[in-house]
């Protein structure tokens, strides 16, 4: 019966709504008569609203019973106007005195910006959308002071690491927490969320801001609020974006020398030729991958050997321009969006669908993402409800081979572009391809694939019950489930006997010590298949009681909260190292044993918290927080409670000086806010199940029926407990010059003691690693954010913004006796380290031995003239950028808007392993000097070990030995400053004028834009290698990262050939609303 009443009531309501609504139109202007574009008009007490158009005009449908409209515009006083009899209402807004800006902070608590006592940044949907990036992480790059996005690569499934205010934990997680609509999730979300569904992103930079999220928020949080729909009639928005990408730059190549290796008789052996040109000739071979042959001269030469059918691949011995670049495709991606929104007084809805396809620059790599999101809200008197549900399905089809590396291994005169069709082109087939060591990259990429499919479902329900004017309850429960099914496969390929043993080099190109058969063909590819399935499930519930009571001049609000969090993850993998019947990729189609892995994790947390905000006369606000957390990561029934249950707390003070002393306010000074905060945050930064020393299977075990176990490599200390981080922050916000200048500045300092870290202890202890509370690190920095509205007239608007942040850190203390240890990523010759008294992570590489006279000259061997290699790895500098700056400008004139964002990062070094690899192949432009010469800037050390004399010794075998056997091994050669300047995005938009839209009945608005991302990149002139933004940060193994819910590891600063080359992107977009 009750239900029926409700339905009848709803029907009546909607009927009356239809019958009694009226339309109000009008114009909104400032006191000088200038019109406002985009000022807000809202029907009081409802969610119905609209904005003024380019001419300051608006039109709004007002339901019966509503009698007031609210007009607002940023920087101006909000005005409420009673609706009279007239249907036209023209309104003038006065310049504002106090600006109220509502922001979303931790756990979805909305606060007046004036009350916030810590640094805080908000990125609006326009900024996110500017470059039309289909990925949120990339869209945030450079837009917030203190935020750094580390891109791993540009594949069709880009991964990123988001770090706020640098690194704090020596070996643990330093990634920002990702929160969607109040629900703690994981970095997984970043790649699946549709950026169009985002209303805004709040960046809570310090631990202070995230106290209420519990430990997960200790590195700051990215708080994403999705669109909920606005009341009013149904609005439909359709957009389509087409995006192209192409390689922006490749490493520096040499195009002087063709393929060859060290075939000439070595120095000291019989037959050694003293003329280097003769040796170069001897080094040439038609089947070499290395590029140390004689100089290109345009004559016709064979590439590879004679094929089984007698054919020869004869080509001009001359470089082909841009041959490497042309072996990549131009990437194309397309994004279609459709969304509906609308609602009534009591309910709103938002429904969106997305279809996104990407064809990457690596031929054949593609991905697809389809998603839908439904958000709705509904009010039933005192009960307000909100719902959010999204489903995203994504498919990825990528090569697991290293296309970039294979491509670089190809000499410049081989037209790779002609060799794409390895199935039909006999010279591209593995049985006929010239290269003895590397198969044709197009075959390898087709033969090694990684296909995976993600299904991501997220939902939450939010209930809000207002008991009285001073008490309300809310509960938000959310779920995120991500499942991935993945198949890695390598096709079977058996080489022909001809290729294995008979293919020969014909005269006149044959050499005496050549052999028949393609070296590479000696190893058949037996194929493999690995099938993997992973799932991740997060459930989160937040219950809050909100109390508010004003006592005299004090406005008080207290939030009492309770949070439960559970995360479960699972991985199952089976595989086979052979494939019997070609092209059938099922593990049952195999010979030999199955391989397999299983991993499971489950963690739970619950916490109680209180958040008290007290404002005095609106100008001084104290915010105090307290939280008690209980975590399963540290729980064992025999452990004392204080090892797994811990408290932390903080306080923040915001003081609006201009309100306390209105006399300070002038035409120039509009608003001054000062703020300070102090927090002590607890963190359960322990790998899952980290309390247990385990005894895993020994490598390879079980061998048939034989079992073998090993003592685990990480010894946990018995007294492990959560770590604590103390953060201090002061800052100021200023608004000047009629609010046209906004300046926000912050200084902060974080101190982390007793960190839970995996210390690399001496292996002689029997354990490589110890998991223990030790170490102390400091992390500090400054941030400034300046926004200026340079021109603010009705026709022309010009805003500029500049952001700068400085961040540095220091390892204050490690375990007694331990002064340094190496992080997990890296090579034996170049790796990142944690070193007491230094910044971290710190790059160490081997390098030159320098003359002891301080001249900076590099010592060489007095006989061979080769540079000497230092036998100890030395510090090269920190790999995290100290300086991050962003600049943006937005220019609007009439219907045209242009906006640009730039980013600079610097103050760090990187090591590019590409440099080492390309010295090996001889592809690198820096290896082009193959003429006899004396090693540059060098000297010879005397027998006494002190005196230094000038070096007059020419390097032995400059055409090969110098580069491959010597220069390549000196890793210092490939260390460069890591700075860059990038034009992150640029967007030129044209909004369809009213004159056009009004002619098309159903069309409400529309825009066309062209955009680009990373169109311009400037890097250090010594960096011949790649985009310094890229990092070979690994995920620490799929099992580890999935089970722990952590993203990429901390070892930035090392580049490899595993990345695809940097790209620039550009495209166009059409957006229509009805």
């Amino acid at each position, binding site marked *: 019966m009750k239900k029926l009443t409700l339905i009848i009531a709803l029907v009546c309501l909607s009927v009356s709504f239809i019958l009694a609504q009226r339309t109000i139109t009008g114009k909104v202007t400032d006191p000088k008569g200038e019109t406002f574009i985009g000022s807000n008009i809202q029907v009081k007490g409802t969610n119905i609203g609209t904005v003024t158009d380019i001419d300051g005009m608006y039109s709004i449908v007002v339901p019966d019973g509503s009698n007031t409209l609210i007009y607002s515009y940023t920087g101006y006083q909000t005005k409420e106007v009673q609706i009279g009899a007239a249907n036209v209402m023209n309104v003038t807004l006065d310049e504002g005195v106090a600006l109220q800006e509502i922001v979303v902070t931790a756990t979805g608590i909305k606060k007046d910006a004036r009350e916030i006592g810590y640094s805080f940044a908000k990125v609006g949907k326009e900024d996110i959308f500017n470059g039309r990036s289909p990925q949120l992480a990339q869209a945030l790059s450079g837009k917030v002071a203190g935020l750094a996005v580390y891109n791993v690569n540009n594949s069709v499934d880009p991964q990123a690491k988001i770090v706020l205010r640098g690194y704090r934990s020596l070996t643990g997680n330093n990634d920002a927490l990702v929160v969607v609509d109040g629900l703690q999730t994981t970095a997984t979300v970043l790649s699946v969320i549709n950026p169009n569904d985002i209303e805004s992103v709040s960046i809570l930079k310090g631990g202070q801001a995230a106290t209420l999220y519990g430990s997960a928020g200790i590195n700051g949080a990215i708080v994403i609020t999705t669109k909920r729909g606005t009341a009013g009639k149904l609005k439909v928005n359709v957009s389509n974006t087409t995006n192209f990408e192409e390689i922006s730059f490749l490493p520096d190549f040499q195009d002087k020398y063709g393929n060859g290796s*060290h075939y000439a008789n070595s120095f000291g052996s019989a037959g050694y030729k003293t003329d280097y040109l003769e040796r170069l000739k001897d080094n040439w071979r038609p089947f070499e991958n290395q590029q140390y042959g004689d100089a290109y001269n345009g004559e016709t030469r064979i590439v590879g050997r004679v094929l089984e059918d007698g054919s020869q691949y004869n080509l001009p011995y001359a470089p082909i321009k841009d041959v490497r670049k042309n072996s990549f495709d131009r990437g194309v991606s397309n994004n279609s969006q459709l969304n509906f929104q609308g609602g009534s007084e009591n309910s709103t809805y938002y429904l969106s669908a997305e279809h996104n396809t990407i064809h990457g620059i690596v031929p054949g790599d593609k991905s697809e993402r389809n998603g839908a999101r439904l958000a709705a809200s509904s009010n039933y008197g005192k009960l307000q409800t909100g719902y959010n549900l999204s489903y995203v399905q994504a498919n990825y089809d990528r090569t697991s081979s290293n296309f970039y590396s294979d491509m670089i291994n190809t000499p410049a005169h081989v037209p790779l572009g002609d060799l794409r069709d390895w199935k039909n082109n006999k010279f591209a087939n593995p049985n006929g391809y010239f290269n003895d060591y590397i198969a044709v990259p197009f075959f390898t990429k087709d033969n090694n694939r990684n296909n995976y499919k993600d299904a991501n479902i997220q939902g939450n329900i939010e209930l809000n019950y207002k008991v009285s004017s001073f008490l309300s309850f809310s509960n938000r429960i959310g779920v995120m489930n991500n499942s991935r099914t993945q198949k890695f496969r390598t096709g079977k390929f058996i080489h022909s006997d001809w290729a294995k043993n008979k293919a020969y080099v014909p005269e006149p190109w044959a050499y005496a010590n050549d052999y028949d058969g393609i070296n590479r063909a000696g190893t058949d590819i037996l194929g493999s298949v690995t099938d993997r399935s992973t799932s991740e499930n997060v459930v989160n519930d937040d219950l809050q009681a909100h109390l508010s009571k004003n006592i005299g001049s004090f406005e008080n609000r207290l939030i009492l909260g309770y949070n439960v969090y559970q995360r479960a993850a699972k991985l199952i993998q089976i595989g086979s190292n052979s494939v019997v019947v070609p092209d059938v990729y099922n593990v049952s189609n195999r010979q030999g044993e199955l391989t397999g892995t299983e991993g499971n994790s489950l963690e739970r947390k619950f916490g109680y918290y209180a958040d008290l905000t007290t404002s005095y006369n609106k100008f001084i606000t104290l915010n105090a927080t307290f939280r008690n957390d209980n975590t399963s990561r540290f729980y064992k029934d025999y452990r004392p409670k204080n090892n797994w249950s811990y408290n932390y707390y903080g306080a923040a003070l915001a003081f609006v000086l201009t309100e306390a002393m209105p006399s300070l306010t002038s035409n120039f000074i509009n608003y001054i806010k000062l703020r300070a905060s102090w927090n002590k945050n607890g963190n359960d930064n322990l790998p899952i*199940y980290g309390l247990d020393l385990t005894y895993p299977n020994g490598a390879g075990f079980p061998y048939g029926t034989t079992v073998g176990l090993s*003592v685990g490599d990480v010894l946990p200390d018995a007294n492990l407990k959560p770590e604590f981080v103390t953060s201090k922050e002061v800052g100021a916000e200023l608004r000047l010059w009629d609010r046209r200048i906004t300046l926000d500045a912050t200084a902060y300092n974080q101190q982390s003691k007793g960190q839970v870290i995996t210390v690399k202890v001496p292996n002689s202890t029997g354990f490589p690693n110890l998991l223990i509370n030790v170490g102390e690190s400091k992390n500090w920095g400054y941030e400034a954010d300046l926004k200026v509205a340079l021109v603010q007239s009705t026709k022309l608007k010009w805003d500029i913004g500049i952001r700068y942040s400085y961040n540095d850190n220091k390892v204050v203390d490690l375990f007694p006796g331990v002064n340094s240890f190496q992080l997990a990523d890296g090579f034996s010759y170049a790796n990142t*380290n944690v070193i007491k008294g230094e910044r971290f992570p710190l790059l160490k590489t081997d390098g030159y031995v320098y003359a002891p006279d301080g001249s900076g000259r590099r010592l060489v061997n007095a006989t061979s003239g080769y540079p000497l290699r230092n036998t100890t790895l030395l510090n090269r500098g920190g790999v995290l950028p100290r300086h991050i700056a962003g600049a943006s400008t937005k220019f609007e004139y009439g219907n045209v808007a242009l906006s640009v964002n730039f980013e600079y990062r610097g103050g760090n070094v990187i090591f590019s392993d590409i440099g080492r690899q390309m010295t090996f192949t001889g592809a690198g432009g820096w290896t082009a000097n193959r003429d006899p010469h004396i090693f540059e800037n060098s000297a010879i050390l005397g027998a006494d070990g002190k005196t230094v004399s000038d070096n007059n010794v020419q390097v032995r075998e400059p055409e090969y030995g110098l580069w491959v056997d010597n220069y390549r091994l000196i890793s210092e050669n490939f260390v460069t400053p890591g700075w860059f300047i990038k034009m992150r995005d640029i967007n030129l938009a044209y909004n369809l004028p009213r004159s056009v839209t009004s002619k098309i009945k159903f069309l409400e608005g529309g825009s066309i834009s062209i955009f680009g991302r990373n169109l311009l990149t400037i890097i250090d002139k010594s960096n011949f290698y790649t985009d310094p933004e890229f990092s070979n940060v690994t995920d620490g193994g799929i099992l580890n990262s999935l089970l722990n819910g952590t993203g990429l590891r901390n070892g930035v600063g090392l580049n490899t050939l595993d990345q695809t080359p940097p790209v620039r992107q550009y495209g166009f977009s059409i957006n229509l609303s009805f």
Partner: protein
Amino acid sequence: MKNLFKYFAVATVLFIASCTESFLDVNTNPNSLPTATPSYVFTNAENTTANIFVGGGTQGVNQMGEFWSGHWTQSSSYISNPIIFGYQFTNGDFNQWDPLYNNLEDFQFVIDNADANDQKYLKGPAKVMKAYIYQALVDMYGDVPYSEALKGVATLAPKFDNQKAIYENLIVSLDEAIVDLKANAFASAFTSSDIIFKGNTSKWVKFANSLKLRLLVHQSRIPGREGYITTELNKISTEGSGFITGEDVGSGGSGFYVATAGKINQIYGLWGYDANGGVLALARYNRPTKYLFDVLIAANDTFRLKRLAYAKGGENPSTPGKSTAAEIVSNYVGVPFGISSGYTAQASSYLGPSLIVKGEFNRPVILMTAAEIQFSLAEMKERFTGINIAGTSQSFYEEGVRQSFRTLGVADAAGKAAILLSSGIENSDWSASTNKLQAINLQKWIALTNFSGLEAWTEYRKSNLPNIPQSSLVTDSKRPVRIFYPNTETGSNSNASSAGTIDVFTTKIFWDID
């Protein structure tokens, strides 16, 4: 609506109340075992030792020794490796340390937990294996953590003990091991957990004695050490169990290895074939040296030549164990040590059937050869007079040669060895050899080829024999006499500096006197 709220409130209260301690009790690792029976750890530890010695690629323990003792070099189908052949290595290269100490920890776990788990019989074998590993560590690094090592959190910066003292202590610990071995026979159900001797403790005692002999023979050129060595050898003689004879000490073998990637003999799986019999790219890397071939051919020792190496072109896949090319001397092309050009893989000889035969993935990994023991005894008898062990230096020498032929798989080993032993050729035929110690040295050097690279390098450093040519990548006469402490240890162990400044060309191991 009010009712709904009530339900909601009640549900919430219940929900909060449910979150007690037990809610958090999900922290038991479901992925890995929380405890281990010593026998399982022992099996893995034995296998790991074998894998560390012969695995690890070009910078592995055995490979490093095979290269630096002049047995092997690389083909020029691979880019020349200046780290190995130009001696341009850093403290980031050749890290044998970390895996070996990791392996020692597993043996230590067995020793510490054997009694409590009623597996006392594992203590002796684990102690022998510990001594085997420590001997290798000292031979590569000199002073290493020993007395304070393997104690976990209790000693986080173990001190570096004097290398000579470690050597002496290893003898003592082997005596302890022998006592344990004699007192505790393997439980019959657990003999298969021992993949070296299948639980045969008397063979373990013989292996312990053989290891003691190895430790002593390394010290034989140190002036004034004669008394100590003689005493210790006579103790072995008194103990009476003798040495490993007529067979090699090997780990794994058939019944253990499985034809699956990662579960086959590591040498086979690294330098030979994959689990499915597919030839590996790295089969084209290692090459026997020209010098090795010159030595064998000069003595007309073609029986062993054909077992140590395949003729150029490598193994014939259709007749496993035989070369593709005719097995005539001119087809055996050794590669000059360290040369970076002119010797492509196909144009030179492959590692031979004594090590790699297609399909024979389940041969044991050899940890010590019978021949080595015989040559050590020959050297001891030749150098020192007061040794009570029965036999003469000649008899031990000749048995060593016979055992070498047997281990290499020469058909009719004893008969073929007899031909060499009576050939009248210097350093082959005992009677025809003018310098007996040189003859022993050379024959031992040949016998260690393919199996005991580290031991061969140790013998070379100890005696500076035979006259292996310098690497062609090196411009002077310097050769490494040790390797660097790894940066993983020096960075984290504050006691590492006590070992002094390391110069890999001059900081010698204590038994390397010149």
